[in-house]
């Protein structure tokens, strides 16, 4: 009896070398041009590590201290270089430890290929030692995942993984490989994937949408461009500049879009969102047109979405159709890669001057400078403060990559660090993962050894992934760590102060001696707690070859301002 409506066609086989599934993993990596992988060995992935042993001269493997950090390091690597980050971990706990990183990479659109070991296929589903259903677990935190149970399926699965991770809106992909597939032998042939019929990563550009966008831009009196990470991911920095310079439109950036446009660009008006700049938030209701370029209207950007851009039409340039109309209704959606769509718009718009409108942002900036920025970065009061530290580091390290952890230092750093070139900020935006900073900085430095990498991290966040100081020592990673130590989980404490009657419920930290910890990991260390020593300390850090831990004892109860209270309209931005 027929059980299918269709007949099968057999494909003839070619004469190819037979190698182990494990070696096929490594040779597939090489075929994809992988130079660095981050990982941690364990029982169900030993065969792959065994194969890797023969390829140590071709692939640089960074042994981290915890699998969460393997994936965060791969994220840092991917975001600094624009290439796909690769990690390998074992089954069970090794795999589950990466879930936070996968979720982070999915929300922040970071291309990652994660290879996880799995128990032998014959023992699947028997609750074997270190068995976990990783495919099921990672369903909602990956762009795509699959399990491989036969050696002969490994190259095709890896080829598909790299294609999916890096194309369209990038994201993390998991390939779960059973131990018998790693140990088995099969003919090896690597064919990079460039087409999957069910996956069309680049929407066709619709000329009507382009022309409609052009019409709105030409008529707008008070337009604002909202720059997102899509510009960086699409490599469209130059196209953005040309669009802005022809249109004369002021441009604000999301947290992840920072550095797509240099900080000193005359049309750059600052950062959007909860702790963004005053102008782009307060002027939101005055805008008659918002041009969202590769951004997704995160709630930290929009505040109350029903009050966002209430007087504005919205043009949304976006590669992911599912983001259009998700939060903010787009009057004109422009689907496609911004690298492709932006020049089409630039070509047709008329050259314009919005200097009067731009000037309104300058007025706002002057208010913010007087009320917020200058007090934040000036030598004031008995204690050092975070803004002052960021300013000092940014001055000393011209054109470094900024990596942050999550919390107050993240917001101070992204507000006061100055960017000259793209891919200069690596921060956990969507998921807000504390502990992300240190491993991400390691990955960023390994990916771009020619650039300085400055990590700003709090005393809370540093202790979440502190063990990676061991990785820094073993792999000689020259990360400059600026520890902003205030003895508090500062951002939560700020909310407790402002919205919970100063009830500091479990936000105070009694910290270890960070000098011992740095020294124990053979990392040069200095502590600074006085205004007058700051510049010298930062200089010493800069001049020290390799890694450095600079502990800055900052004011204990400082707040980040401006601030849009959660869920409020962005125009409710508070300066104090």
């Amino acid at each position: 009896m027929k059980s299918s409506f269709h007949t099968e066609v057999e494909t003839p086989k070619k004469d190819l070398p037979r190698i182990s599934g494990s070696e096929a993993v490594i040779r597939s990596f090489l075929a994809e041009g992988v130079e660095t992988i981050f990982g941690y060995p364990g029982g169900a992935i030993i065969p792959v590590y065994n194969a890797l042993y023969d390829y140590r001269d071709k692939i640089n493997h960074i042994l981290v201290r915890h699998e969460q950090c393997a994936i965060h390091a791969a994220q840092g690597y991917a975001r600094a270089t624009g290439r796909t980050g690769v990690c390998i971990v074992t089954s069970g706990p090794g795999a589950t430890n990466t879930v936070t990183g996968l979720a982070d990479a999915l929300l922040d659109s970071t291309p990652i290929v994660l290879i996880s070991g799995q128990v032998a296929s014959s023992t699947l589903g028997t609750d074997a030692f270190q068995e976990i259903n990783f495919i099921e677990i990672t369903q909602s935190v990956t762009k795509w995942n699959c399990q491989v149970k036969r050696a002969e399926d490994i190259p095709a699965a890896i080829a598909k993984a790299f294609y999916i991770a890096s194309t369209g809106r990038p994201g993390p992909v998991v390939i779960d490989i059973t131990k018998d597939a790693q140990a088995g032998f099969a003919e090896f042939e690597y064919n990079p994937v460039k087409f999957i019929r069910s996956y069309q990563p680049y929407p066709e550009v619709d000329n009507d949408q382009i022309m409609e966008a052009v019409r709105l831009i030409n008529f707008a009196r008070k337009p604002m461009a909202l720059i997102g990470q899509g510009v960086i991911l699409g490599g469209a920095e130059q196209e953005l500049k040309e669009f802005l310079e022809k249109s004369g439109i002021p441009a604000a950036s999301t947290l992840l879009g920072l550095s797509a446009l240099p900080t000193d660009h005359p049309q750059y008006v600052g950062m959007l969102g909860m702790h963004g700049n005053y102008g782009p938030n307060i002027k939101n209701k005055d805008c008659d047109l918002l041009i969202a370029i590769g951004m997704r209207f995160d709630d930290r950007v929009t505040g109350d979405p029903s009050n966002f851009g209430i007087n504005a039409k919205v043009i949304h340039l976006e590669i992911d159709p599912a983001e259009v109309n998700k939060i903010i209704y787009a009057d004109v959606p422009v689907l496609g890669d911004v690298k492709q769509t932006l020049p089409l718009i630039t070509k047709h718009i008329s050259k314009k001057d919005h200097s009067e409108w731009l000037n309104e942002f300058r007025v706002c900036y002057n208010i913010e400078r007087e009320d917020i920025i200058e007090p934040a970065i000036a030598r004031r009061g008995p204690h050092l403060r975070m803004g002052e530290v960021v300013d000092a580091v940014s001055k000393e390290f011209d054109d470094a990559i900024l990596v942050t952890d999550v919390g107050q230092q993240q917001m101070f750093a992204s507000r006061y660090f100055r960017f000259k070139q793209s891919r200069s900020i690596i921060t956990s935006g969507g998921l807000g993962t504390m502990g992300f900073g240190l491993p991400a900085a390691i990955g960023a430095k390994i990916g771009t050894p020619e650039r300085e990498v400055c990590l700003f991290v709090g005393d809370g966040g540093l202790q979440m992934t502190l063990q990676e100081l061991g990785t820094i020592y073993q792999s000689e990673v020259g990360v400059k760590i600026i520890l902003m130590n205030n003895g508090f989980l500062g951002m939560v404490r700020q909310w407790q102060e402002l919205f919970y009657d100063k009830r500091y419920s479990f936000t105070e930290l009694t910290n270890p001696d960070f000098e011992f910890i740095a020294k124990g990991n053979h990392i040069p260390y200095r502590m600074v707690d006085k205004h007058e020593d700051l510049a010298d300390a930062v200089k010493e850090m800069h001049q020290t070859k390799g890694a450095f831990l600079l502990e800055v004892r900052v004011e204990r109860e400082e707040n980040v301002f401006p601030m849009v209270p959660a869920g409020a309209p962005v125009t409710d931005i508070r300066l104090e």
Partner: protein
Amino acid sequence: MEKEFIITIFSENTVGLLSQITTVFTQRNINIESITASESALKGIYKHTIMVKNDPEKVANLVKQIEKKVDVLKAFCYSPSEVVLQELALYKVQRSRNVEELVRKHNVRILDIHDDYIVLEKTGHREEIVDLYHMLKPYGIYQFVCSGQIAIIKSKRELLDEYLSYVNEKHKRMIENNEI
């Protein structure tokens, strides 16, 4: 306002695909009213039919999120008036004269007859199946099962064909241009 929608999803036949799709629903706290899945008439392509009740905007976003899944070729959303719906139900009931009358009246098929029960099959709209259930109930229903609704769209061609001819064209072009 909540309305009824029929979502049809065409996908590759990969392990775990159904769970990929249902994740999209659970994450948005949207309840699935009924779900069916089977191979479609196109080689290797599976068709899932899912009924939901929710507001139109939420459903539109949901469909885009489903379509975003790598192994999903295309997802479509219809209102009940755009499709022909059918459902199948089996009833195991006690034998009695009254039941036999209902069988004649409602055009029900008899699948199996035993000394003390009969198995009835009814295909039709959800309402007809529910009505029959209530009519049979007083005479004793031992077991009841229904299939979930399946749907076929009223337009002549399967809309998936357009997508498939688009991707096939594209694939051909890529081969011609030596891109793959």
